[in-house]
């Protein structure tokens, strides 16, 4: 198709033809990124503290989403599901930790990747059996806020997700700095052996961290179900983007995760707009590879390695 390149030039022109388009896309992208930022907090915690890459993130999100859908089906307001989903997922997180995850904490990252991949297939399949394969949505009925004769339209649910992303981020920072458990988590992340020496029950810390992550994902999922559609097999986009965000931001940096999340959302939207939707995901992963290569090259100049 010879028209492709020409079309892309047109898309760039179109993007900057009106501030409403460029601005609207930016805002949409940032709101889109906020849900991923939420999920990435949890991943950063689990990765940083337990050295586990949890591929089950997306399935936790979808489970949280189904909690909202089930509540909406039974006449409750879907936003009530945000705390409920968090609670349900918290319990599931503890359960998973006690049965499986605690066995892989001390093992290499590779093991955790594969093991959680296995868990994620099981969860997908169970959701399909229990909730069915229909794409679902729990409309919160919040409506939209708009400006400039509908050229900028903001969904209030997405705004809520954005606010929640900031609030949860701030709360996490406070929690990690101030509370006893938070301090124990940070101590364990810095040096698990030393933490055990000073009497911290690292096993409990790990369990709390993993369950906390699941709870955050659940809350994010309840929002995702109201803002987008969910489906038992749609967890992957959530997993990979949270993954990407954490890699860009680095571990143990909640503010960085938030910034990376919002930035990635916006970047992805601009890429999708200009290149066409078919290259949106390729762009995200291309970016992942480029970021890693750049970091590796940077470290290589100092004779160090990315590991």
């Amino acid at each position, binding site marked *: 198709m010879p028209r492709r390149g020409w079309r892309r030039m047109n898309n760039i022109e179109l993007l900057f033809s009106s501030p409403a388009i460029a601005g609207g896309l930016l805002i949409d992208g940032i709101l889109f990124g906020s849900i991923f930022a939420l999920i990435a907090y949890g991943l950063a915690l689990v990765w940083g503290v337990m050295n586990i890459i949890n591929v089950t993130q997306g399935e936790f999100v979808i489970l949280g989403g189904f909690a909202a859908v089930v509540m909406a089906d039974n006449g409750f307001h879907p936003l009530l599901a945000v705390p409920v989903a968090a609670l349900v997922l918290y319990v599931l997180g503890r359960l998973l930790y006690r049965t499986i995850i605690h066995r892989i904490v001390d093992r290499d990252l590779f093991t955790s990747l594969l093991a959680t991949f296995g868990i994620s297939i099981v969860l997908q399949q169970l959701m399909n059996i229990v909730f069915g394969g*229909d794409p679902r949505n729990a409309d919160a009925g919040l409506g939209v806020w708009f400006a400039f004769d509908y050229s900028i339209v903001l969904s209030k649910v997405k705004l809520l997700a954005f606010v929640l992303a900031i609030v949860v981020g701030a709360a996490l920072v406070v929690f990690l700095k101030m509370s006893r458990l938070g301090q124990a988590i940070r101590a364990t992340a810095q040096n698990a052996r030393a933490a055990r020496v000073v009497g911290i029950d690292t096993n409990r810390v790990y369990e709390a961290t993993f369950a906390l992550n699941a709870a955050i994902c659940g809350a994010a999922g309840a929002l995702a179900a109201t803002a987008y559609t969910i489906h038992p097999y749609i967890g992957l986009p959530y997993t990979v983007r949270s993954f990407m965000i954490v890699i860009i931001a680095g571990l143990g940096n909640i503010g960085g995760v938030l910034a990376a999340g919002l930035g990635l959302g916006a970047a992805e939207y601009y890429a999708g707009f200009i290149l066409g939707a078919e290259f949106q995901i390729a762009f995200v992963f291309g970016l992942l590879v480029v970021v890693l290569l750049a970091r590796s090259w940077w470290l290589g100049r100092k004779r160090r390695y990315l590991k």
Partner: protein
Amino acid sequence: MFRVMKFAAAAVIATGAMAGTQAFAADDVITLGAAVSLSGKYSTNGEHTQRGYDLAVQVINERGGVQVGDTTYMLEIKYYDDESTATRGAELAERLIQQDGVNFLLGPYSSGLTKAIAPVTEQHGVPMVEGNGASRSLFTSGYRYLFAVLSTSEQYLASAIDLAAERAADLGKAPNELTVALAFENDPFSQDVRAGVVEDAQRHGMQIVIDDKLPKELNDMATTLTRVRALQPDLLVVSGHARGAATAIRQIQEMRVDVPMLAMTHCDSAKIIKEFGDAAEYTLCASQWAPTLTYQDDLFGSAADYAALFEKTYDYAPPYQAAESSAAVMTFVDAFQRAGTLDRAAVRDALAATDMQTFYGNIRFDETGKNIAKPMVLYQVQNGAYVVVAPSEWAAADPVLPRPGWADR
């Protein structure tokens, strides 16, 4: 929890059906093989497909089975789960034929899977009747053992484009001034539908201003819709199985995107009315079948009777994916009876000579194996119901064009 009960109920029915068939001696059973998508991205439509097959088998067996020559046979289906992947589908077809000794295959869900399975059935000379693989390319490959009861991909949205051209005056333009935006999932079926739409649009001289491929992991199409809002096309066409339909309806409402015409596929399999209510209003939907059509047969009665029976059994209105699957089973049965033998080649020839009416429509195959006796219909969602608006011989109402803007709703 409701789903769980439904699942349990379905399991009980399935067990019952199995127990029923086991009462007969093994040589009085015709086993049809099917690989359907019970899991993965097509699981919604895979389930519709399976239920369509099951319902037909159940009714046929209740009526005493199939008379082939001097023997009466019960029907039975051997299922595998293809997990919505083409590779798996081909493996399972091979296994059904080679290891399970199945002589007749029912189609999987989706064109991609059918494309993967057709070379296998062709190689082994096993007839396959399918109701869910619409890609035109399936019928240009010279397959002799493939028969499709459905209309092919290029017909899906042809009537929507024709409608736009016909009613261009209502949109305040000449047909060749209309602009079209396309958003199609990047899979064989949707891309073939797209090819048909592009041809039709060019025939009317319309200009295509957006032509996006949506990713398979589809849960967001905001970037496409932003461009739609900026370029204001007259017609937006979306196709991406159940998830594409659901995502489009959700986000068009949420972003308050105004287009004079919105046409898509898979509305009923995504249950957009139940799920999105008012947001689904005025959407034009391509459908292979509608319960209001006037076709009939001896087994199910009229299209409406089929719909009632399906709803009674499975608790929701039958999407066309289920209807065409049931029709595929009926086509096989008809061919068995006319062939008078279960020899593969004889059944194949009988299939090629099929000329019948079912509740789903007329079925007559051309030499490439596609059904040429049944047109597509175009629904519009009006007041929370699917109403046939085209072609005119079945139209129950006039289409509402243009769609009212979001500000006026």
